[in-house]
Every structure is written in structure tokens, then in C-alpha cells.
């Protein structure tokens, strides 16, 4: 019988330093591996342990897979010490995905913070794959300093040119430096005046991913701006272990994040205490 605990042998093809603490790993699984934007994988570091990560690459390219990882704990630190040619294991993909088919013909507002940009990048590739399905996409992103911006080249330049008339970008940093000419302020400040770009806020979809505190304040701001709770999509971070609904670690109220999430609308979560902790 199929063993859901068995990882697939995966080679690290390339390691890209995004910021001082964030690296992107380009992975090549031994077997064919498909996922959809929003879903997560369990990544095993041999002999060390396993952790949940969301792929950041395009779901439409399935010979390779990319994950963008910030160094925060034991597992991510060992991972940051790995190099090209090293082996890891992956299981999955697990959880639900962003329901793109329900977003057709809607204006889309993406709000990312820090390393939370990873799943949003994968989402962005999916959205732009059928770019004509969406009348407008606004991409807000906030990082601590210009140095902490991930996928710098894409988000500050390449994407802006490539999707000039379709997507507008609002990039902000909490603290600028002498070279930074863009916005300064937390990501919610980049939402000011969003109604000039998004015509029908009550119909529009917003997608939020970032650190819990950023998700909290962004959600409150979005509600304030007139977004409906059922149109605010949040990617919840939990310490998933099994990924398959058995181990209980990802429990969030009556939900299991690995099964019912990681993507939830705010409407589903609003009655659960302490969702932001």
C-alpha cells in the first residue's frame, strides 16, 4: 500500500541567496511532482527533520520546484548549510490551493510581507498564466529594508516591465536607505488609495501572506477598505508535521490546516480565538 510518510528523493540543483537570511532552493524531485499555488510540501533534511514549506515556483513548470526559505530555526538552519548536489526528501503536495477559477473576471489585490512572498510568487505565476482572466491585479509588498526584499530583480523590475498595463506594483520598506527611492512605511500604508486602482472593492479578491502580525493588520485594513470577509484569502502558518490530517499539530479551531487550509477566507476564521498568535 501507498506509504504517505515516504519522502521522494530530491536533488538541490541550485541555491540562490535572496537576502542575508533568505535563500531560494531549486529542487529536482526524482519522480514527477505536481502542485497548485497555495499548497505546501513537507521537506525532509536527511537525519535532521522535516518542515512545511510552500513552493514559490510556477505550478506550470513541473520538472523543477523552488522553495524560498528564511533561516529561523533548527531545520531551516541546516537547510541553509546545504549546497548544490545535496539530497533532501519531499512529500506532498498537501492542503488546498487558491481557488483561481472562482476569481475569474475579478480585480485581485495581492498583499505580501517578508518571506510571505514565496507562495504569492507561485500564485502570481498562475494568475499571469491566464492574465486576461483578470481585469486588474495590484501587487503590494512590504519588507523591512531594501536589502530584505526577496526576488528583487523580478519584483522591482522584470515583472513591472513584463505586465506593464495589467499589474501595478506597490513596494514598500519599513526603513529605507540612501539608494531607496520608493515607498517607506509598513505594508498597510501601501494600501492607502487602493480604491483608485480597484474599481469594485466589494467584488474584489485580496490574497494575504506574511508574518502573523502583518496578516492581522492587513486584514483589519482590508475590512476597513470595504473588502468582504469571504473575499479575503489568508495563508495560515502552522507547525504541520504529517501533512495528512493525522498528527493533530496543525489544528486551528475545528479545522486542520493541512486538510482545510493552508488557504482560508477570513470569513471561515473570524470566530476562532487567537488566530493570529
Amino acid at each position, binding site marked *: 500500500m501507498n506509504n504517505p510518510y515516504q519522502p521522494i528523493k530530491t536533488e538541490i540543483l541550485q541555491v540562490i541567496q535572496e537576502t542575508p537570511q533568505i535563500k531560494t532552493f531549486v529542487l529536482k524531485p526524482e519522480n514527477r511532482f505536481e502542485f497548485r499555488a497555495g499548497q505546501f510540501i513537507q521537506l525532509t533534511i536527511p537525519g535532521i*527533520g522535516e518542515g512545511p514549506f510552500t513552493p514559490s515556483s510556477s505550478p506550470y513548470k513541473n520538472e523543477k520546484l523552488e522553495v524560498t526559505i528564511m533561516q529561523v*530555526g533548527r531545520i531551516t538552519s541546516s537547510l541553509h548549510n546545504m549546497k548544490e548536489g545535496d539530497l533532501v526528501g519531499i512529500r506532498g503536495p498537501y492542503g488546498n490551493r487558491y481557488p483561481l477559477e472562482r476569481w475569474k473576471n475579478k480585480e485581485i489585490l495581492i498583499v505580501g510581507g517578508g518571506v510571505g512572498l514565496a507562495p504569492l510568487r507561485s500564485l502570481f505565476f498562475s494568475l499571469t498564466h491566464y492574465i486576461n482572466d483578470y481585469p486588474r491585479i495590484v501587487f503590494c509588498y512590504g519588507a523591512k529594508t531594501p536589502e530584505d526584499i526577496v526576488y528583487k530583480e523580478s519584483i522591482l523590475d522584470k515583472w513591472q516591465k513584463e505586465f506593464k498595463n495589467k499589474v501595478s506594483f506597490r513596494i514598500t520598506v519599513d526603513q529605507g536607505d540612501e539608494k531607496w527611492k520608493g515607498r517607506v512605511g509598513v505594508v498597510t500604508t501601501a494600501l492607502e488609495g487602493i480604491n483608485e486602482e480597484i474599481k469594485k472593492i466589494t467584488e474584489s479578491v485580496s490574497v494575504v501572506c506574511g508574518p502573523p502580525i502583518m496578516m492581522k493588520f492587513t486584514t483589519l485594513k482590508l475590512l476597513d477598505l470595504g473588502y468582504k470577509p469571504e473575499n479575503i484569502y489568508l495563508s495560515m502558518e502552522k507547525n504541520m508535521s504529517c501533512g495528512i490530517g493525522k498528527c*493533530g499539530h496543525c489544528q486551528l*479551531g475545528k479545522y486542520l490546516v493541512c486538510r482545510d487550509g493552508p488557504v482560508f477566507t477570513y470569513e471561515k476564521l473570524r470566530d476562532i480565538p*487567537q488566530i493570529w498568535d
Partner: protein
Amino acid sequence: MKEFFLSKDSYLKFVENLSCEFSLYAPVQKGDFLFYDKVNKENIDKLFVDLRRTIHPIKSFFIPPQRRVSEYFISSSEKREEKKKVILGVKNCDLNALKILDNVYFGEEFGREYKDPYYMEARKETILISSDCMDPDENCFCTLVQSKPFPEEGFDLNLSNIEEGFIIQVGSEKGEELIEAFRDLFSSVNKDMSKKREKNREKIFKLLEKINKKFKTSSSYRELVRDSYDSSVWKKYSESCVECGGCNQICPTCRCFLLSDKKRGEKYEKYYLWDSCLLAGFARVAGGANPRPYLFQRFANRLFCKFFFFPENINLDACTGCGRCISVCPGKIDMRKVLRDLAIEKRVTVSLEK
């Protein structure tokens, strides 16, 4: 349901035969408690099949405290051949617990297409011979969670003690096969015997109601726990909790585990280890954020899990009333009192007489 009579002598022969042909486990007394032990020549005359539940939960036969679940990137082909297991003296609360675990490990509601192959294999390879309870202890409260001290389903065979022997009920094909294999030990049941069984069952049910009289609440535990996040009861009782996690480990329906990785020789292995939601690190994420930093939140979580999350998911309470958590708690916390106090706080009728 088919049933047969098994005289005292035949019963002994039956158990002896089972111990030869299978890995047979049955309750034995050690100190204050009953434990499952493998039946052998030394202990075969010291089994207590029909008193009450053992102290350690039956889940350990199906999800052991630690188990290797995968090997990567090379796999060896060590295979252990083991005799089929028979567990004798399983109680109704244990059977109810398996219902919960079945849902988690291979049910539709938990993890859709993902089934746990180890659990399923263990379930398939194990025969359950349950029995009516004849001597519940003061912590047993199955009647408070709408259950009964005797099994009606979920067993392969069930034994009901009626002085001159046992009535044995057949609950499955596996059970039927076992009866066929030892056909000449069994005879037919007469009306008198059935009457005796009913009387016993009624007597024990009444005894349990008496034991639990002072805890009975007029609303169900589901209703009491729902929306009680802010109750002061959690804070009050968690003050005596020492965060040992014992209540999770001993609970027959607590199924939480953690996957961990080890290196063995050239191989890497993934293990599964029991985990406890009462422990501070249980829900902590990699970055250090913890959704339940306070003990009272984790303390409440256990009961929320039992009486809110599980009912919401599969419409079953994940508490069988076995009372093991009461028996082992070093803080002397009795969840019946916790729930009763929730009721008092909500101004629900409680019977307070002693």
C-alpha cells in the same frame, strides 16, 4: 447477532487454545491497576478479563508510542513475521476509542485519500474479544458520555460473565471463524442465561450512575464546552496541572504524534512519536510563535478537542468516559469536575448531592 454459551471449563480451554495459536494479550493485575500482558503459562490463570478497563490504552496496539514509518533513500527489506494478535478483555470504552482512531487513520474526514498503512495493517491483523464490565472503578464515567459498560458493536467476539460461564456474542466474520475453529467448546444459550446477562448489565449501569451522580449535568458536554473559551474554569483547574502530558498519553483517543528523523548506518529513517497537546512546544511554529502559550489554553484545548473539534468533524465525542486521565493525573484533576464547574458557571442544572 449469533450467540453461544461457554462453560467455565470450556472458557479455560478456549483461552489456552488462543494463547497457543495467537499472540494473546489479556489484562493482569500489577499494583493498583490492570495492564495488558502477553499471555503465557505463568500468567494464564491470573487473567482478569471482565472487571474493568486496563490502565494503559488499547491504542498502543495499533499506534505504538514510537514506530518507524519510512526509510529513505535506500530501503532494506527487513520484515518481521508476527503471529496474529488476539486482545482479550477489551472494554466498550476501548471499542469506542477505536471508532475515533479508525476515523483519523483511514476515514474520509481526516485526510481524504491519505490512509495510514501501519494502522490499517494492525487493525486487520488483530482480533478483538471484548467483555462486559463487572467491576468499574470510581473514575469510570462512560454513562456520562452516553455510552454503556457493555459492548454492542465493534468487537469480533464479546463475553458476558454469567456465573456458570460466559455468553459469547459473534460480532464479525473474524469472530465467526474463531467460533468455527473451536466449535465443540460452545453450546447454545437459553432464556435464563440471557436474563442473567440483562440483569448484570442493568446492575452495572446503575452502579455507574450512582458513582457519577454528583457529576451529572443536564446539558451535554458538547454544549458545555462550546463557546467556553473565556471561562475561568480553565484557569482554575490548570493551576494544579504540572504539564506532564500523562492525560494525553493515557487517553485512548489522543492520537497526536510528531514525525522525527534519524540516521541509522547509511539509512535515514522517519519515526512517529506520540505527542501531547498539553506540552508547551506542541503547537509552536518554526519562528517561535505559539498559538497556545498559556497552560490554561492548552489545558482547555484537550477538552475542546474531545467535545468540540471531533464532534464538528465526525459527529462523535472523542471521550469514551474511561476515566484514565483521572486515574493518572498527578495534579488530581478530575475532568468530570471541570465539566461540572463549566455547567455551574453557565447556570445549567447539576446534581450536587453527595
